[in-house]
Each structure stands twice: as C-alpha cells, then as structure tokens.
C-alpha cells in the first residue's frame, strides 16, 4: 500500500483545525465549530480503527512505513507502526472525540480556540506514536507542550498560571537533555532512524549516559517519583478535557518511549539501571498511594492514583518478561480509559456544583443513580477488580515482577491494596451515606452526552476485562520481538 495513511491520520486533525480557523464566522456560531471538530476526530477514529483492522498482527516488522527526505543529508522523515504503537494511536483517536463532546458542557468561553487546541494536540500525539525517527519523535513529543500549556493556562482553574508554568518548564527541562542525547546518537551512529540504530547498536560505554538523558525526559513525563509534582497541579487546574487528555494519552508517551527507545537502543544500560527503576516505581506505587489517601480534592486524588498506576507500568516494562511488558502496555491502555472516565466523572459533578472537594459531596447515590453506577465501575476498574480491564494489566505486571524479584512484587501487591483503600474511601465519601447537603438536592443525573460517553467507557472497561485478547493479540508478536532483540543484544555484549 503506497497511500501515506499514517501521515494522513496525523495531519487530519490539524486540517480540521485549519478549517475552523479559516471558516471562522463572526457570529460565533459554536455549533458548527463543534460539528466540524467532532467530525474530524471521528473520521480520525475510523481511520485508526481501519488501520488496526488492516494491520498485520502476525508480523513483527514495522508496517505502513513512510520515508521521505527531510533535512537534506541529515535526517529522514520516517513513520511506521508496529503492534505496540497502533494501539496507542487508536487510544488517542478514541479519547479525542470524547474530550470534544465533554467540553461542550464544561467549556464556556472561547470554545472555538479550545477545540483548535485539542485537535492540534491530537495531531501531535498521533505523530509521537507514529514516528520512527528520534528527531521526528522529539519534534512531536515537545510540540504537544504548546497546546497543553494553553489548555491549562487559558481554561484552567484559579491557580492555572502556576500549574501551566510548572508543567511546561518541568517537561522542557527533562526533554532538553534528551535532545542532547539524540544529537549525540546521531554523531555516534550516523543516523537517527530508530530501526537502523537497533541494528547498528550503540557502544555500551555510551549507553549509560544516553539512557539517563532519555530517562530524565521520560521520567518527568511519566511521571515517576520524585519528579511527579507537576502532575497533581496540572490535573487539578486543567479543565476536564485537558485532564482527560493528560491522563489518558500524554502520560502514555513516556511509557511508549521507554518501550520503543530506552529498551531497544540501550539494552545494556536498561539492564544496569533496573534497580533504580524498580526502586522509583515501588516508591511511586506505595508513597503516592498513601498521599492519595489523604487528598481532599477529588482530581488530586485521581492524579496521585495515576502516578501509582504509572509505577506499575515502569515496573512491568523493566521486568523484561513477556508478561511484564504486555501487562504494562495493557495497564497503560486500560488506565487511559479508566482515568479518563474518572476525570470525566469528576467533571460531571464539578460542572454542576463547581467544587472538587470530597467534603462538599456525600450521599449522591440517592439522587444520581446512573452516575453512581458508572462511577462504581470505574472505581472498581482503578482498583483492579477481576472483570475490569485494570485487573488484567496489574496481574500481568505482578506475574512479570514475581519472576524477576520477589520483594518488589510483594511491595507492588501492597500498593494494590492501598489503591483499593483510597478509591473505596473516595467512593464511600462521595456516593454513599445520607444526603445531608441541601444544595445537592438540585443535582440532575447524567444528561444524554455525558451518559453516552460514560456508559461507552464503562462498557469498554468491562469488555476488555473479560476479553483482553483483543489487545494482547495485537501486541504478542511485537513484544516477542522486543524481548528477543533485547536478550540477543545482552548476550552479544557479554560475549564481547
């Protein structure tokens, strides 16, 4: 197939955004803008699903590869996907229409600009998962900062300026070191094409420093303890749609980066730094769970729970076992659905009450039965109850971890219990109990669009919990290749 389908998927949302800019009518007809952006993102979703459908699941090669000259003589423009990246593209394309529908209820001013920012961001995010060249990857990885900075800063809460600056500067600081590493790789291997680097192999003595430079960027983005502090601020201040994208997709770029770049390019260093990653992951799982227990702000609680869940992801990736890596990919995707849904749930009551404090709610089950139902499903999914998608990811990661290090696995399991504690307690305080606050009596249950989104997400969470093969089938071959390459490289290096 010669049609550049990956570039089209990447460019499509931006084209939609340009369309909105050019055909901007002065009457401020918001409806048209919503329809155009929704249309664009739904078409992107269909394209992504089509791509998933035609994707050859039995091949471990990169597919739909596009290659063009870009910076003459230095860097090629290279796109391509394997079993891992296709799922993240589908996730991105799936979450964006949901954000667009959800923001219709919550964003009151400058809706048009908001939708433009979301669409541009979608393009950049898809670009991250498509790129097979380090420079192109860096380009998209960093470019996403611009729309996200604006989303937090313009439509955010009262402390939005602080949160936006913290988000931007933290991430930028982490990434500039990655840029130095990328350029160094260029001078060491003579290329920035990922597949060529895989085959050329970077000399072991360089790997440690380069790995750390990449790690600094991904750890901030992931976020790993102790550089996670930007995330609660950003989540709390961002508008609902911004939080959803941040939790569901932006955090996944780092996990994807670890899988694609850190492991593939620096196997020796990855093996060497396993204790570091394990320690940080365990601290993230246990410490941030404890912190989440004490939060009074619902969004902050979910934000800390994200950090804990991402701890599972890094733990799983660095076990280098099939179960561990597949588990962490599954965990990322399921967290993408569940955390997005949880933020949407908070958004639902926030739009009505304009408060995110747990203490201002209580007894919602009496007046919001539908809301309580979906919230329960997502809450249980976040805990990792069997039957939800959260369970599959966590159990696989723990299976991987037990093979590698018993103590780590035990500690991670404790994290699961803590996770249950804070989520159940949150649910108890918000939903159960008597309805004591009079102002809550006025609340209306989910409206059509909210109900549609949340029930769709709840259905998917349960479906993936019962039928995880939908995802696992796609990644098996690619993960096998990843692990084989990794072990081959390690053996080759010890032989030398």
């Amino acid at each position, binding site marked *: 197939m010669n049609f550049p389908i990956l570039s089209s998927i990447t460019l499509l949302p931006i084209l939609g955004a340009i369309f909105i800019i050019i055909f901007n009518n002065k009457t401020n007809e918001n409806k048209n803008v919503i329809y155009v952006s929704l249309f664009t993102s739904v078409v992107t979703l269909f394209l992504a699903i089509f791509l998933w459908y035609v994707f050859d699941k039995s091949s471990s090669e990169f597919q739909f590869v596009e290659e063009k000259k870009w910076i003459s003589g230095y860097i090629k423009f290279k796109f391509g996907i394997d079993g891992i990246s296709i799922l993240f593209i589908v996730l991105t394309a799936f979450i964006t229409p949901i954000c667009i529908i959800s923001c219709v209820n919550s964003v009151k001013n400058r809706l048009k600009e908001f939708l433009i920012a979301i669409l541009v961001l979608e393009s950049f995010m898809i670009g991250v998962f498509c790129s097979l060249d380090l420079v192109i990857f860096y380009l998209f990885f960093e470019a996403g900062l611009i729309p996200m900075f604006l989303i937090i*800063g313009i439509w955010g809460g009262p402390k*939005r300026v602080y949160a936006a*600056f913290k988000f931007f500067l933290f991430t930028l600081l982490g990434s500039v070191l990655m*840029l130095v590493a990328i350029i*160094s790789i260029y001078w060491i291997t003579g290329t920035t094409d990922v597949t060529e680097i895989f085959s050329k192999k970077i000399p072991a003595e360089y790997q440690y420093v380069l790995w750390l430079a990449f790690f600094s960027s991904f750890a901030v983005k992931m976020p790993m303890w102790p550089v996670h502090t930007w995330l609660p601020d950003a989540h709390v201040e961002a508008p609902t749609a911004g939080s959803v994208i941040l939790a569901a997709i932006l955090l996944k770029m780092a996990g994807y980066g670890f899988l694609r770049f850190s492991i593939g390019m620096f196997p020796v260093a990855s093996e060497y730094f396993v204790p570091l990653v394990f320690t940080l992951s365990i601290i993230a799982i246990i410490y941030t769970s404890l912190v989440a227990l004490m939060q009074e702000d619902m969004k902050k609680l979910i934000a800390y729970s994200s950090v804990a869940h991402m701890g599972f992801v890094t733990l799983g990736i660095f076990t280098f076992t099939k179960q561990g890596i597949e588990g962490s990919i599954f965990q990322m995707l399921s967290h993408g659905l569940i955390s997005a849904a949880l933020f949407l749930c908070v958004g639902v009551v926030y739009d009505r009450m304009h408060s995110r404090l747990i203490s201002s709610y209580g007894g919602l089950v009496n007046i919001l039965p539908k809301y309580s139902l979906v919230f329960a499903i997502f809450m249980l999914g976040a805990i990792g109850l069997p039957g939800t998608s959260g369970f599959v990811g966590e159990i696989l990661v723990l299976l991987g971890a037990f093979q590698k290090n018993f103590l780590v696995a035990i500690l991670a399991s404790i994290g699961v219990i803590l996770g249950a504690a804070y989520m159940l307690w949150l649910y108890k305080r918000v939903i159960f109990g008597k309805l004591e606050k009079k102002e809550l009596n006025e609340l209306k249950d989910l409206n059509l669009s909210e109900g549609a989104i949340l029930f769709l997400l709840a259905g998917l969470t349960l479906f993936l919990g019962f039928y995880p093969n939908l995802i696992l089938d796609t990644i098996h071959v690619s993960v096998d290749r990843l692990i084989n390459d990794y072990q081959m490289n390690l053996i080759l290096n010890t032989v030398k």
Partner: protein
Amino acid sequence: MENISFFLPEIFLAVSILMTLMIGVFLKNSYVLVTSIIYGIIITLILIILNSFDNSFKLFSDSFVSNPFTNFFKILILIGTFFILIITQNFIKETKINYFEYSLVLLLSVLGMFIMVSANDLILFYLGLELQSLSLYILASLDRDNLKSNEAGLKYFILSSLASGLLLYGCSILYGFSGSTNFEIIRLNTNTENIGTIFAMVFILVGLAFKVSAVPFHMWTPDVYEGAPSSVTSFFAVVPKIAGVAVFIRFMQIPFSEITEQWQPILIFISLASMILGAVAAIGQSNIKRLIAYSSIGHIGFVLAGISTSTNLGYSSSIAYISVYVVMNLGMFACVFSMKRQGKYCENLNDLSGISKHHPILSISLLVILFSLAGIPPLAGFFAKFYIFIAVIESKMYTLAIIGLLSTVISAFYYLRIIKIIYFEDTNKSFDQTKNLGISTTLFLSSLILVTFFLYPSFLNTIIETLIVY
C-alpha cells in the same frame, strides 16, 4: 574593467544614496518620497546581487571579495532593512520624527555593512565598520528633542568608539606582527609562535563582541535599545547583528583560522556568558524593548556557540540561526509597532494584558513568534537551535551544549510570561484598531515562515551549504 561589475551593488548603493540625498535636501517634507525611492533601491539591489549570486571574485588587489557567502549576507541585510522600513513607517510619522534622513542614514549604514561583509583587508573592514557605526550613532539620537534618545546616542557613541579603538589597536598590532593588512596574508603569518597576532586577536574579538553585543560587552544594549526610538531599536536588533555575525565568521575563517585553539575558549566563554545572561537578566524586565535587548544577547550567544566550533558545520549553523533570528525579530517588532493605545505607542509588557480577546490575529502571531524564540518545536526557532547543537555536539563540546540547552529552559520562562500576559489574564483592554498593510503583511509572513518551516527545513540548508565552502 569588467570586474567592476562585481562591485556594482556598492557603487549603485553609494550613488543612489547621494542622489536621494539631493532630493531630500531640495524638496521639503520629502520623507515619503525618499522612503519610496529607497524601497526601489533596495529591491533593485537585491535583484543585482541575485543576478551574480554564485560568482566569486576578488577586487582591488584582493582587498574586496564578492562570493556567495557575502552575497547571502547582503541579501539578508537588505531584506531586514526593507521590512524594518515598512513596519516603522507609521511609527515614524506618528511620533513626528519623519525626517527624510532616517531612511537615508539607514541606507548609509547598510552601505557600511556591505563593505564590512565584503572586506578582505583590515583597512577596508575598518572603514566599513566606522561608516556603519557612525550612521547608527546618528540614528540612536534621531529623536533629537527627547532626552532619552540623546542619552542613548551619546552612550552608544562613547562606548562604541572605545570598542572601535580597541579593535583598531588590534588591527595595528596584527599588521605589525604579520606584515600585511590583507586577510589571507595575515592568515599565512598568524600562528601560535607569533604571539603578537594572538594578542591582536583578543583585541579584535573584543571589538567584534561589542558590535554584536555579546557578554561581557553588552552593557550598552538595554539602555540604547530602550532610549532610542522604537523604529531605530528595531533596526539595531536586526540588521547590524547580521553584519556582525558575517564579519565574525569571516575573521574566524580566514585570518584566525590557524590559531583556533587560542580563540576557541574565549568564544566559548563569551557564548556561554551571553546565553546565561540573556536568559536570566530578561526575567525581571517589564519594558518590551529592554526584554528584546536581553533576548537578543541570548540569541547572539547561540550564534557564537556555532562559530566557536570552528567547523564548517558550525559556521553554517550560525548562518541558519541568524537567518531565523531575523525572521523572528522582524515579526516581534511588527507586534511592537501594533501596540498602540489612544494614539500612543506602548512599551510596557503589562500593556499586552488580555489583548487576545480583541486582537486574536495579533496574539496568535505573537504566540507563534514567542514560542519560536523560546525554541519549542515544531517552529523554526527550534530548528535553528537544533542545527547549532548538532554542530556543537559534533565537536564534542558537551558542556556548552548542556548549559546552552538549560539556558533555553530559563529563557522559555520569560517568553512564557509574555504569553501568560496575553492569554491568561482577563483584563478588558485593547489597542487601537489600526489597519496597516505593511505591519500585517510582515507579521503574517514572519509567522507563516516560522510555522511552516518544519515542512521543508532543507530549504535553508541547501542554500547555506553552498555558501560556506571556502
């Protein structure tokens, strides 16, 4: 005699300046006429230079060179001047400093820069430099009834003369120790054994660093930028920098190419200091012109980082950087000249507060330009920095690369602060709605180039690659 055609741009420029001067002197209120003639002159000059772009030639017993490298810089200078004249036209009229001398002296300094860029001889170089500098002194104090403008002119004059003096002293030592004023002969006689030439190199570097306002010779920049009329500031921030960088590269490439190890540490220090100071000192500024001054110091730091590698890749990355810098700063100044409230031009950053509601197009362009200045991909500013760091890391100067990149994070802070003022603040102020074709075209072109640069970045590379083959 046919060689003279390679000298044609300079002859044409000099003759037309004198002719236009006559028009200005004999006709009253001739600002508009003179300026429109000058547009014509600039366009003709660009065409003349383009016509013989690829020819390399040396004239007047090798004291004057004309090759793609100098032609590229001349065209860049002309484009810069052209757009500066366009965007400043309204400002000049409205602040009542529309003397015809403004455009003419501007052009005169351009002539000086032409000679500077093409000079292959110390004496010719110094002549060009002084012609340029003297014109700039006059320009700085153009607003002659304004105390600040006078102060700026005087300050610039005194400090710059000092720097020129040091530079001239360096030139004389260089002549003494190498026996010639010709760049190529100097190169043959300049080496580590010839200590005097190293001495001279330091003095010349001081003078050049002053002209491009690199730390620690930057002190004049914020004051002069703030004091001079905005129209002149915009010229200062763009055009002399181009010529300065060209001369820097020529000096490093030809006379001092044998003593690389001697000037490299100096240049690395200057470059690091400029990057850091440019990033840190700009944070506290509230005046947009002072802020641009510090930001330009930081950008010069990056250009010098490219030059300090002393490789062809480094030189071409510096050329790419200065080209992108020109585009960004032209756009930035086009924004500055749209900041007008009740007939008065604003210079305070807080005046931008909340303008995104009333001026969506101006604010989105400013957004693009500021993110590009901060070096965030996928805008052109990122590629400029990227090329510089490719060259720097090729030469294994990791410290320079890491500190440089960290300073971009610091400088991102103050660019973001402006964006915060424009977009995140909720005040209900607006500027006068002015429909100025020149300003809006410049703004549009500049942001368009910055945004679409990533689609075809080879465009700039392929041009620059042909220049640097010396």
